[in-house]
């Protein structure tokens, strides 16, 4: 007699073994995730790995930013952490600087500053740029043309110089530097969203001819938004990468933060003074971190971009 | 007028051309053998994707990776082109065998003047030629083609379509090649220009004793000018024979179908005839004859075994009906 039917719906099969155990055990779950990784790679190719690496970098450095105490051996402002200007070695993995501070700790604590500023600046830019772009694209007419002209002019102006001008005028301070950086990217979001809005608008008017007025908003929400979101997310990630570079540049040239706050850009400018004597460890590590963090967001952005809008033609 | 006492100027023996792609291998050309005799016009016909253009490119060893030629021989005046080095084949390209392409606008570099593109070819093959000599060579060729020689100083986009077409022929003929391969030369031209082209080709052929390989899907063109015809389908040869013979009495069902499809203004046709079905998948071709799935006269064996081109009444036919 076939006993399978008796046990069909239950958690235990014929032999009394749990059907679900292997699927939901820890090993099973890990295996499942692993398989999902490999299948995604097959589906998306090398871009998938680029995205994963980028994500890992971001997660690691975010951890550094959020829980520096768990990683840093010393306080970043402790001026008695060890001997002065010591090259990397035991006790001080990355060496010490001219004020006898441990460089590794400064690097770890510095993540918070740069990531914080860049992230908040990107959010600010998008919060201003996106609605403006939507509005301008939707309303059209002379307002649109004026806004576009302004945004295009700002966009064509070298971003760093603009940020320098703002930072110079606003003065030092974390808030000010965040504002300065965020202004530079508003046109980016504006142009992006306006362009998308314009394209959709064309199609919408055809629809609107047949549909009732109320339906337009539904279409906007259900069809435009997902498309725009995908592009915005990619741009957001690349934006943060750029903002990181801008923030570091601003502190490097001395426009950014008060001396107390550990910052990679500022450490670079301090290290510059000791360069002629061959003190390489003061420069190498902060700069390397800036590059890695910027790379992380760039990889995330590019990977996402390829996955969300795959290039059909083989490159 | 056949010179079958002499060796054919170009012989293709069991040629295979494959393109590996992500989902498999495209068998663009499979086991193709044919001959081109000196002084004749050979028409290579077939629908898009049958492999005729690929075949033409292979005669100048222009198949680029990932495409490859796994086996076969292409003998030009007795020498195997496929075994030649890059250096040797470059001496033949444009010099002994010339090729002209479908779209004359995109065949000419838009940023260079016409005369410079000619000079480049001349310098490449005969570096001893002086600028003045080159100038007269170009002027000569243009004259033959009925183009005012002053136009050579212009850029391609400044000339009309028909003129560009003739310039393209000129580029092919400038080094006085033995063979001219024309790949879909009239497809982008209107019928009036096409008629002019046919006249021109006839004239040039007689004057320069040119051997022409005409690759086209246009049977009407082939009917006007070709001496012999090779019919291809799905990468394989279906029928080879003299033009009059084939048009009088097409042996292969595919050839028959092709000819019937040509709209004839004299007949009282109500509908345009078409052949049902679609071209074969070149990655996973059918087991037997490539045309069998669409053939109105298909037999069981056609679906099982590939027919080889066999001699029959002075032609070659690849069809189980004739063995």
């Amino acid at each position, binding site marked *: 007699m076939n006993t399978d039917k008796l046990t069909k719906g239950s958690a235990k099969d014929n032999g009394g073994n749990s059907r679900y155990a292997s699927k939901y055990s820890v090993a099973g779950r890990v295996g499942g995730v692993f398989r999902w990784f490999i299948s995604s790679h097959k589906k998306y190719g090398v871009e998938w790995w680029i995205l994963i690496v980028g994500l890992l970098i971001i997660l690691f450095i975010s951890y550094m930013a959020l829980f520096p105490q768990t990683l840093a051996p010393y306080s970043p402002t402790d001026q008695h952490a060890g001997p002065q200007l010591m090259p990397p070695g035991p006790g001080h993995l990355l060496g010490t600087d001219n004020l006898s501070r441990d460089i590794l700790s400064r690097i770890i604590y510095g993540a918070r500053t740069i990531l914080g500023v860049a992230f908040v600046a990107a959010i600010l830019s998008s919060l201003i740029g996106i609605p403006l772009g939507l509005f301008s694209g939707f309303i059209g007419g002379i307002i649109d043309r004026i806004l576009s*002209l*302004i945004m295009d*002019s*700002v966009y*064509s*102006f*070298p*971003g*760093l*110089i603009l940020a*320098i*001008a*703002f930072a110079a*005028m606003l*003065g030092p301070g974390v808030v000010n530097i965040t504002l300065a950086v965020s202004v530079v990217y508003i046109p980016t979001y504006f142009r992006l969203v306006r362009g998308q809005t314009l394209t959709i608008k064309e199609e919408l008017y055809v629809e609107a001819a047949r549909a009732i007025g109320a339906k337009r908003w539904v279409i906007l929400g259900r069809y435009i938004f997902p498309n725009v979101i995908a592009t915005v997310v990619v741009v957001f990630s690349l934006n943060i*990468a750029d903002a990181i*570079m801008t923030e*570091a*540049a601003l502190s*490097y*040239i*001395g426009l950014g933060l008060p001396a107390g706050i550990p910052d990679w850009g500022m450490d*670079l400018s301090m*290290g*510059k003074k000791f*360069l*002629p004597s*061959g003190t*390489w460890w003061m*420069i190498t590590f*902060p*700069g*390397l971190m800036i*590059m890695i963090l*910027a*790379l992380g967001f*760039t990889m995330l952005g*590019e990977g996402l971009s390829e996955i969300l809008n795959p290039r059909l033609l083989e*490159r | 007028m056949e010179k079958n006492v002499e060796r054919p100027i170009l012989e293709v023996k069991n040629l295979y051309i494959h393109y590996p792609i992500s989902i498999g291998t495209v068998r663009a050309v499979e086991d193709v053998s044919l001959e081109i005799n000196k002084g004749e016009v050979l028409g290579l016909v077939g629908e898009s994707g049958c492999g005729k253009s690929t075949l033409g490119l292979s005669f*100048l060893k*222009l198949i680029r990776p990932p495409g490859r030629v796994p086996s076969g021989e292409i003998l030009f005046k007795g020498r195997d082109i496929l075994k030649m080095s*890059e250096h040797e084949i470059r001496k*033949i*390209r*444009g010099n002994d065998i*010339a*090729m*002209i*392409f479908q779209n004359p606008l*995109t*065949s*000419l*570099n*838009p*940023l260079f003047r016409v005369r410079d593109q000619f000079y*480049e070819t001349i310098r*490449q093959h005969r570096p001893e030629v002086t600028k003045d000599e080159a100038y007269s060579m170009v002027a000569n060729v243009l004259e033959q083609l009925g183009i005012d020689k002053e136009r050579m100083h212009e*850029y391609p*986009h400044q000339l009309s379509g028909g003129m560009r077409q003739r310039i393209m022929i000129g*580029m092919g003929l400038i080094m006085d090649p033995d063979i001219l391969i024309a790949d879909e030369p009239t497809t982008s031209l209107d019928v009036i220009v096409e008629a002019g082209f046919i006249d021109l080709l006839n004239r040039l052929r007689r004057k320069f004793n040119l051997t022409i390989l005409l690759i086209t899907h246009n049977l009407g063109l082939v009917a006007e000018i070709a001496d012999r015809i090779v019919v291809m389908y799905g990468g394989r040869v279906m029928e080879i024979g003299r033009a009059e013979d084939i048009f009088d009495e097409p042996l292969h069902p595919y050839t028959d179908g092709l000819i019937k499809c040509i709209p004839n203004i004299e007949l009282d046709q109500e509908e345009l005839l078409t052949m049902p079905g679609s071209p074969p998948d070149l990655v996973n071709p059918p087991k037997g004859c490539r045309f069998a799935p669409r053939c109105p006269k298909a037999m069981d064996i056609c679906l099982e075994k590939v027919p080889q081109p066999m001699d029959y009444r002075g032609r070659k036919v690849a069809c189980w009906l004739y063995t």
Partner: protein
Amino acid sequence: MKNLLKYIITRIVLTIPMIFILLTLVFVILRIMPGDPVSAMLGAHAPEEVIEQKKEELGLNKPIIAQYFDYLNQLIHFDLGESMIFKQKVSQPIKEKLPATIELTVFGMFFTLLFGVFLGAYAASKRRTGRDYTIRLYANIVYCIPVYWMGLMLQLIFGVWLKWLPIAGRVSARIMVSDFEKTGFYTLDTLLAGDFHAFGDVLLHLLLPSITLGIVLSGIFVRLTRANMLDVLRSEYILAARARGIPERRIVYKHALKNAFIPILTMMGLQFAILLAGAILTEMTFSWPGMGRLLMERIYLRDYPTIQGIIVVFALFVSLVSLFVDIIYALIDPRVKY
């Protein structure tokens, strides 16, 4: 020729609104500061009357619209105003320092193109090989390298460790600049004066900073060139050229590159702005006496008129380069009708 002139004039006319907006933008930025520059300059403890008097002097008490029109009026007469800190016209230090920045930028662009275009063309011709992937990897990473960090690292390696190249300034201390200085472009000046020793020295000093700029910006050009080259290499005239027996190297570097170059030219114009920004950072790193360093100096000294003047000059430069590129584009591509 007449048509070309009309085309140029049209382009100039179209650029004017943009320049106008940029100038307005600069004005707005420099007026939004909290607090006022005069107190900052004189110190918070200065007596009221002195502050008011100074403000009157500088015209800062007029309504903002009036100030705006004064500003525009000045600019139309090519007057950038006077420094608030030093007794000089704003244009003076700018005139002195501008050639240094231009020289650096030009050489920087040269290296950018050198690395970018040739690596890109090479990658395209060796498509899908290991070399192609390596070059693409380079292109993607290089953009994330802070230009000043690259400068510092190069200084470390070539200046401090290997001691091959100088790491600061435009000339060595031993060279007397006044001997040859004429236009401010030292490469030109030394050649004009026939002083080849100084010429060599100037070039040596230019090498590291320009290469730094060149490498960091080459990434974009590598990608652009490669993409364009791939497109071009697929075109029929390339196939036709091959069919005529033209050797591959000539096809890639003469035929294909010339066709692929046009969008690269446009990109050059766009990248110039970024190059300028990078130049500022490079000047700070290499103690290069140019506009960038001048800007930072004056920011520190709170010399607002000069700061404004420098930024105005930058804005004008960016617009002019963009215009210039448009015109060159029309000249190079015979298909553009004018």
